[in-house]
């Protein structure tokens, strides 16, 4: 309790702030709706209200505050509206919808679960490609001085390039050679997740000190044996730490890669929400992406504990 207490207080404060902020953000729309229904509102023309301060409008019309939390297309949806949208698009759409899981046997394309699945599969594929490439490159860098000197500076430069600038083009290029769907997004994910793994693994593979490598040499170990029996086991903590960063980056890559593709996924859902003013939909997709990120990082953490325990380490 003593550790969770401050966190709970902060989360509660965050929600209170969210509700409070939603009032001035949505008050104009609420007043317009109230005026149409014939309720007297303070500055009674829309032109005057447009020029007025939002906080002043709230103070002048305290009766409309509940309306500000119940708008159809709010500028800032209240937490319960986002929760309602999540419930609607994750559970109700599958249970009751015409195209839902119960009626049609497959996930509804109007529900969030299908889009989350599309994003998750692109993230997973991209993460696996990126992590493999990163480990391979790190092994090459540790074994070849030339490779380190020529590739490492470019690996660093490649990370200062805002990769998302490439996203639409990668998609167009791959489309014109007949590739579409999962792979273009996965390539963007892989590009983002590969760098943390390279840096972490280079550090990890170099973690054994001179004494340990010398000992391997006195046992007449070949380069391959040094790699598999000493360097790779020693690099595991570094690998898992960098994989946690990499998997979060892979998710960002998949979401950004979905922006220009329009083939479904949480990113496409956000873009659609922003086109049609469905703010609750954007927030719901955002929260689901956040939950996905948390679950992915937690899964890597679990794998780390398992691997370290099997290796006999103090996990």
């Amino acid at each position: 309790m003593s550790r969770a207490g401050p966190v709970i207080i902060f989360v509660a404060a965050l929600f209170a702030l969210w509700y409070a902020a939603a009032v001035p953000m949505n008050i104009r729309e609420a007043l317009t709706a109230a005026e149409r229904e014939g309720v007297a509102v303070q500055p009674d023309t829309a032109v005057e209200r447009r020029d007025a301060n939002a906080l002043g409008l709230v103070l002048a019309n305290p009766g409309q505050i509940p309306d500000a939390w119940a708008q159809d297309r709010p500028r800032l949806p209240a937490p319960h509206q986002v929760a309602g949208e999540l419930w609607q698009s994750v559970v109700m759409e599958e249970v009751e919808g015409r195209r839902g899981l119960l009626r049609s046997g497959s996930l509804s394309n109007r529900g969030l679960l299908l889009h989350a699945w599309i994003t998750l599969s692109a993230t997973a594929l991209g993460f696996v490609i990126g992590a493999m490439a990163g480990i391979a490159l790190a092994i090459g860098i540790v074994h070849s001085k030339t490779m380190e000197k020529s590739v490492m500076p470019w690996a660093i430069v490649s990370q200062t390039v805002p990769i998302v600038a490439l996203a639409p083009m990668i998609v167009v290029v791959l489309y014109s050679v007949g590739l579409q769907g999962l792979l273009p997004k996965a390539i963007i994910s892989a590009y983002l997740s590969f760098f943390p793994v390279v840096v972490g693994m280079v550090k990890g593979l170099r973690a054994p000190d001179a004494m340990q490598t010398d000992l391997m040499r006195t046992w007449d170990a070949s380069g391959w044996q040094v790699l598999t029996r000493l360097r790779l086991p020693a690099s595991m903590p570094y690998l898992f730490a960098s994989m946690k960063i990499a998997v979060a980056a892979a998710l960002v890559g998949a979401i950004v890669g979905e922006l220009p593709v329009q083939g479904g996924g949480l990113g496409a859902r956000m873009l659609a929400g922003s086109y049609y003013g469905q703010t609750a939909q954007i927030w719901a997709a955002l929260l689901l992406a956040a939950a996905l990120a948390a679950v992915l990082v937690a899964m890597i953490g679990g794998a780390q504990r398992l691997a370290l325990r099997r290796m006999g380490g103090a996990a």
Partner: protein
Amino acid sequence: MSAAILALALWLGLWALNVWLATGPLSNRIWARMAVPLLFGITILILWEIAVRALQVPLVILPPPSQIGARFAESLPILWGDFVQTILRGALSGYAIGCGAAFLTAIAVDRFVFLQRGLLPLASFMAALPIVGTAPILVMWFGFDWQSKAAVVVVMVFFPMLVNTVAGLAETSAMQRDLMKSWGAGYWQGLVKLRLPAAMPFIFNGLKICTTLALIGAIVAEFFGSPTLGLGFRITTSVGQLALDMVWAAILVAALAGTGFYGLVALIERGVTFWHPSQRG
């Protein structure tokens, strides 16, 4: 066929030169250390050029580097306008505001244990989230011009910067803090003279991570709406017109800006944390 042989011969020749430069007798000279990655980059560019010409890859898939360079040179005024809009107005102002706010918050977090227990777990959770997803919301709130791009950048850089700065402020050992206390130093003296300097490597690590995030935030935010200039706008419209050489020219601007920005921060870091082992190498 002859192009393939030429490409292979070039690759082997330049790679052999690289091996000699990197491991041979000259490998400790400064110019040799600079030349190795440069040669590698030039090799890739030449191979790219040969491959595109020999295989007659259509322009709409992959233009050769020479043509990208030509397009870059002839549309400098347009690209300069995009650079000012996206990098100078959007990314830099957001970067300054976000990193500044995160720095001040970190000092407050460090001062008050309550904030440390309550805010820090939330912040490290937020730092791992796909915050770029808030871009459509912020564009809706702050309009299409650079203000909304700066807002996206602020949100993106805040949490990584906060987490790094707090970690840096915890870097001093109990012995060092006790020594400061035995000299009669108050909280602020201890902060300014011991703990902030000790935190600098971490702060600069955060600042370097945030340079890339700032550019990503500013460019992605333009995908959700922008005035008729900016790098993100240029990329999306040029992809639509299948003017791939223009897309690559815009990417070149973003790459140069990103590398320059990162290099600038790294240069300042070298000046400020000259005492740190990683800088003395």
